[in-house]
Structures are given as structure tokens and as C-alpha cells.
């Protein structure tokens, strides 16, 4: 606290000296002015704590001076000194904010106490003002900081939200009361629900009975076991496979706050896994089969050879001959099955090269030409000349075409055997190729044969499934064809109607941009 400063304004020099001396002795700093104007000049440059003003001075009158002082220094307490207190005058002065007035001759001790009070008051006022100023500044700064931080937080919040909304997996938060706090866009789409129907609602409200206990189990585990924070399993949701992951959220004191669930679509991965497992199985079967078939064929060879030699004997009895011929037939059957197995197990990796599908079809037809003509089968072709080349193993593709054409031939023969009441029936096979899809070439082979009943059509690509009598087919043809087409990255499909005919459609990926 610095020493208070007093301004003494009086036109009389002895008053000035007296007051200066008195207050200096009291420990104050004192300055003097002899007139109103001088007083104002002095106040301009200095900070005074109190002014003692004689109101009866030549020049400016007391009230005006008071006003002017107040203009310059609003909080400066003024104590007026007057010899003749005019009651009205005093009232006006008080109205102007004068602090006190003292009658002359001045009772110094009284004046001293008044001055002390004034200084005390003015200091309080000034401190108050400065504190308010400080408070205002601080508050302004705080607001600025808050706004900045809020801005940052909002940006951060938006960024995180954008991240979660943009994720290609379902994210669901629930709190410690099992209330859904949030679900991201993917999750809402997956479960086909609207935000407002789920957020803020209890988790179990809309759960299916089947999933309820599993989810409850996870959350209960998290709630009851502080050490368990993660569980996952795979599940089927909306026709696709998902990997479900549950993570517990805990605060610093390890208290359960809620759970975050992530559901990731793994349908492709599972498909790939099952395909790979199938391929591996096939590969191992392949290896096994080759070995086993050889083991079977050797004893068969010996049986067959011995039987053949017996049949060559000239003096063989008729019933013995029949027996041996029967044995031969059975051996033949076993050989066919083994042959089919060997072919099936040999579904090797295709040897890929550029293939002209139309040319391949022509080649395959030429191989069957004689047979088809003999059986009066009409071949119609609608081959699109503009189809691009495809990448394929031409031997394997030829095999597929053969298999389907042979099946068509058999279906036509069967229908012919049944006899046609309708004289309009044409025994024909229609082969078309089309390339109007961007990535595929389409081959279709349609026959007017006996057709495939609806109850078995889903099985025709199964290995060993056949409707032919045992000695005619092993049922492996179409499953081999299916395997080959799939191995090429293509698709094979069948449509059929009993008594009308069957159509096989094959799609094969093509070399983009190359034309014949």
C-alpha cells in the first residue's frame, strides 16, 4: 500500500502550509493548489486519494470545481472546507458527491479522521474497480478458451463420429444399464432400424428370443468379472456371416461402464475358407484315389485275365461259360466306377490360355457329329461372332461341352423312346453363344429332351448322382463339369421342364477388350 496522497486546495497560503505540515507529519504526501484551475491542472497529472477543497475561492466556485474534479477523477473523495456553511449550498455540494464538509476554523483532528475515512473508502472503491476489471478480463479469457476447446472438442467429436459412421462394420455402444447409446450407420442398415427407435432404448427391447441369452451372457460376464473384457464368436445375420466382437469399457477404477460391439462381415472369407477346405480335401482325395485305384485294378486285372483265359477254353460247359461271362460283367462295372473316381479326383488346376469358344464348340460337335447324325439329332447353332476370347483350359472346356451334349443326347433318346403323341416334336439341340455382358461370355445348350423333374434338379451337380441305370453312368459327369466351370471362375446353371426340355447355361469370364 503506497502512501496516500492528499491535495489541498485553498487560496490562503497559511491554510495550505498548515494543512500540508499537519498531514505530512501524519505520514501522508501532500500537494497544494491555490485555485480551482491549478487544482484541476494538478489532478490531471496525479492520482490523489482525497482532495481538501475550500469552496470560497475567487474564480471558480466550489460546486463547479467539485463537478469538474469529479469529471477528471470520478472516485476522488472531496472534503469541502467552508467558513460559513450555507445549508442549501451544503446540500447541493453533497448532491454532487462531496464526501464531507468541515467548518472553518478547521478542527485538525476531526479533519484527520474524515480524511482517513475518505482514503479508506476511496481505496476500497478503487480496489473493487480493479478487481472487477480483473474479473472481467479473466472471464473473457475463460470464455475464449472454452470456445476454443469446445471448437476442438466438436471437431474431434465430428472426426470420431465420421470415422465410426464411415466404418464398414457395425458398431454399437451400450452403457452400464444396457441402454443403447449409439449405433453407427452400418449397424442401423444391418438391422434395418431407425436411429430414433433404438438410441436411448434398452438393448433387449427388440431382441429376438434366440439372440437374447447370448448377448445377456456376454454383458453379464463383463459386469461380474473384472478380468474379462473381450468375447467374440461368429453368427449368421441377415443371410450373411458375421464375426461378432464385444469389448467391455471400464473407467480408471475398473468399474463397468458399458460395452462396444463390432460386427464384421466375413461371408466372403468363410466362403473362401470352405472352398479352400474343399480343394484341399479334393487334393488329398485325389492323391488317395490314385493309389487306391491302382490297388483295386491289379487284383481286378488278375481276376479278369483268369476269367478270360477260362472263356477261351474250347471244352467249356455252357453254364460255366455263363458264370464266367457274368464275372466279366461285374469286373467291368467295378472298372467303370474306378475310372469315374479317377477322373473325378483329377480335377487339376486348369491350364489357362486364350480360347475361341465358338471354335471349341464346332470342334466338340465334330467329334460327336457321326453319332448325332446317326441318331437323327438336329443341331442348331446361334453363335455370336463378336464374342471375345476367354481365358480357359480348352481340354477341360471341351470335356464340359461333351458331358452336356452327351446328357442332351441321352435325354432326347429317352424322350423319343417314350413316343410322341405330339407330331410337332423336334429332336434337337440348340447351342448359342452370347457376349453381351461386360465380363462374361455365355454359352447355352438346350435340348428338347425328357427334362429333369423339380424334385431332383437341385441334385444333378452332386457327385455320383445319376438317374441312369448302373451300367450306363457313374453320375460324375455333371459334377466334373461343375468343378471345371467353377475352377475357371465361371458359373453353370440349369433350367428344365419335364416333357419339354433342359437348358444348361454357362458363364465364363472373358479377356476384356479382345475381339475375335
Amino acid at each position, binding site marked *: 500500500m503506497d502512501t496516500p496522497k492528499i491535495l489541498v486546495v485553498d487560496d490562503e497560503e497559511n491554510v495550505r502550509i498548515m494543512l500540508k505540515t499537519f498531514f505530512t507529519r501524519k505520514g501522508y504526501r501532500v500537494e497544494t493548489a491555490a485555485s480551482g484551475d491549478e487544482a484541476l491542472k494538478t489532478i490531471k497529472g496525479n492520482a490523489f486519494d482525497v482532495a481538501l477543497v475550500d469552496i470560497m475561492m475567487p474564480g471558480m466556485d466550489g460546486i463547479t470545481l467539485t463537478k469538474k474534479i469529479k469529471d477528471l477523477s470520478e472516485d476522488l473523495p472531496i472534503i469541502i472546507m467552508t467558513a460559513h456553511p450555507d445549508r442549501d449550498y451544503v446540500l447541493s455540494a453533497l448532491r454532487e458527491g462531496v464526501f464531507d464538509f468541515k467548518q472553518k476554523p478547521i478542527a485538525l483532528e476531526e479533519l484527520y479522521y474524515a480524511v482517513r475515512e475518505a482514503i479508506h473508502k476511496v481505496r476500497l472503491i478503487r480496489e473493487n474497480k480493479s478487481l472487477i476489471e480483473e474479473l472481467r478480463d479473466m472471464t473473457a479469457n475463460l470464455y475464449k478458451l472454452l470456445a476454443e476447446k469446445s471448437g476442438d472438442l466438436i471437431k474431434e467429436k465430428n472426426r470420431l463420429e465420421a470415422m465410426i459412421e464411415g466404418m464398414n462394420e457395425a458398431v454399437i455402444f451400450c452403457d452400464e444399464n444396457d441402454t443403447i447409446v449409439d449405433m453407427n450407420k452400418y449397424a442401423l442398415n444391418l438391422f434395418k432400424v431407425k436411429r430414433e427407435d433404438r438410441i436411448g432404448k434398452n438393448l433387449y427391447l427388440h431382441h429376438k428370443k434366440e439372440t437374447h441369452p447370448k448377448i445377456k451372457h456376454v454383458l453379464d460376464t463383463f459386469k461380474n468379472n473384472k478380468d474379462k473384457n473381450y468375447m467374440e464368436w461368429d453368427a449368421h445375420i441377415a443371410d450373411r456371416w458375421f464375426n461378432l466382437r464385444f469389448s467391455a469399457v471400464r473407467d480408471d477404477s475398473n468399474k463397468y461402464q458399458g460395452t462396444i460391439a463390432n460386427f464384421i462381415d466375413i461371408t466372403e472369407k468363410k466362403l473362401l475358407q470352405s472352398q479352400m477346405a474343399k480343394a484341399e480335401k479334393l487334393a488329398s482325395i485325389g492323391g488317395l484315389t490314385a493309389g487306391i485305384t491302382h490297388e483295386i485294378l*491289379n487284383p481286378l486285372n*488278375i*481276376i*479278369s*485275365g483268369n476269367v478270360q483265359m477260362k472263356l477261351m477254353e474250347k471244352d467249356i460247359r455252357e453254364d460255366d461259360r455263363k458264370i464266367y461271362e457274368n464275372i466279366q460283367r461285374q469286373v467291368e462295372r467295378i472298372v467303370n466306377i474306378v475310372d469315374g473316381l479317377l477322373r473325378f479326383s483329377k480335377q487339376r488346376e486348369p491350364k489357362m490360355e486364350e480360347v475361341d469358344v465358338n471354335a471349341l464348340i464346332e470342334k466338340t460337335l465334330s467329334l460327336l457329329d457321326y453319332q448325332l447324325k446317326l441318331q437323327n439329332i438336329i443341331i442348331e447353332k446361334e453363335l455370336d461372332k463378336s464374342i471375345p476370347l476367354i481365358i480357359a483350359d480348352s481340354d477341360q472346356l471341351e470335356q464340359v461341352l461333351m458331358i452336356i451334349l452327351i446328357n442332351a443326347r441321352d435325354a432326347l433318346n429317352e424322350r423319343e423312346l417314350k413316343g410322341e403323341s405330339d407330331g410337332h416334336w423336334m429332336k434337337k439341340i440348340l447351342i448359342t453363344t452370347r457376349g453381351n455382358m461386360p465380363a462374361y461370355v455365355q454359352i447355352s445348350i438346350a435340348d428338347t429332351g425328357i427334362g429333369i423333374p423339380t424334385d431332383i434338379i437341385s441334385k444333378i451337380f452332386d457327385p455320383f448322382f445319376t438317374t441312369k441305370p448302373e451300367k450306363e453312368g457313374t453320375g460324375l459327369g455333371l459334377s466334373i463339369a461343375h468343378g471345371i466351370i467353377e475352377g475357371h471362375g465361371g458359373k453353370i446353371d440349369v433350367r428344365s421342364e419335364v416333357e419339354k426340355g433342359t437348358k444348361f447355361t454357362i458363364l465364363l469370364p472373358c479377356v476384356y477388350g479382345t475381339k475375335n
Partner: protein
Amino acid sequence: MTRILVVDDEVETCDLLKRYLTKKGYQTFTALSGEDAVNIVKEERPHIVLLDIRMPGMGGIEALKKIKEIDREIGVVMITAVKEEETAKEILKLGADDYITKPMDLKYLDNVLMVKIAMMTG
């Protein structure tokens, strides 16, 4: 008399073929392995060798090569399992003169041999 060597790791197969071929008037030798086959070829110089493709130790393919090294004129007919077309093509590429599938049709074998011999002498 035409000399034929039958090579198969199965004794009973060899016996069967020896019985049949002897009946048909051929002088028949047998070998149970590729190594034995090569030795007999060196000693007896058969006109035709019936060679099983799948044998332990020196397999049919290797035996084929070795026999052809000794004498290119010897006819080698490979015995393969069922109707393996791809293997058949490869066999012929490797230098075999023909192939026959197991289980063997003995009449067919007879024809093959007759044709081969006719080609060799004619």
C-alpha cells in the same frame, strides 16, 4: 520264336500273362522290377516288352527310357490304369510304342502284339 518280356511288380499278373502268352506261342520272360527288366533286356533281347507304368523303385517311365537306350528297336507297350487319356498321350510322347489299359482285354493285347511284330518284321 518271338520273345516277349512281361514286367510287373505283381507276381500273379506276370504269371497270368506268361500263361496266356506261352499258350499263344510266344517265348515269355518275366521281371518283377524295372532293374530286373533292364538286365533281362540286355541278356535276352526280347522283341517286345510289356511294361507296367507303376512300379516301386525304378518306375515304368525310367525303365522305358533305359530299355530304349539299350535298343531303340525294341517295342515297348506300357500298361496303364483304366482309360487315362492324358497319361496315354504323355506315354507315347516319352517314346513308348503303344499302351494298354488295366484290366487288360487279352484279345486286344493279342492284336496289339501281332501288329507290332508284323511292323517289326515287315
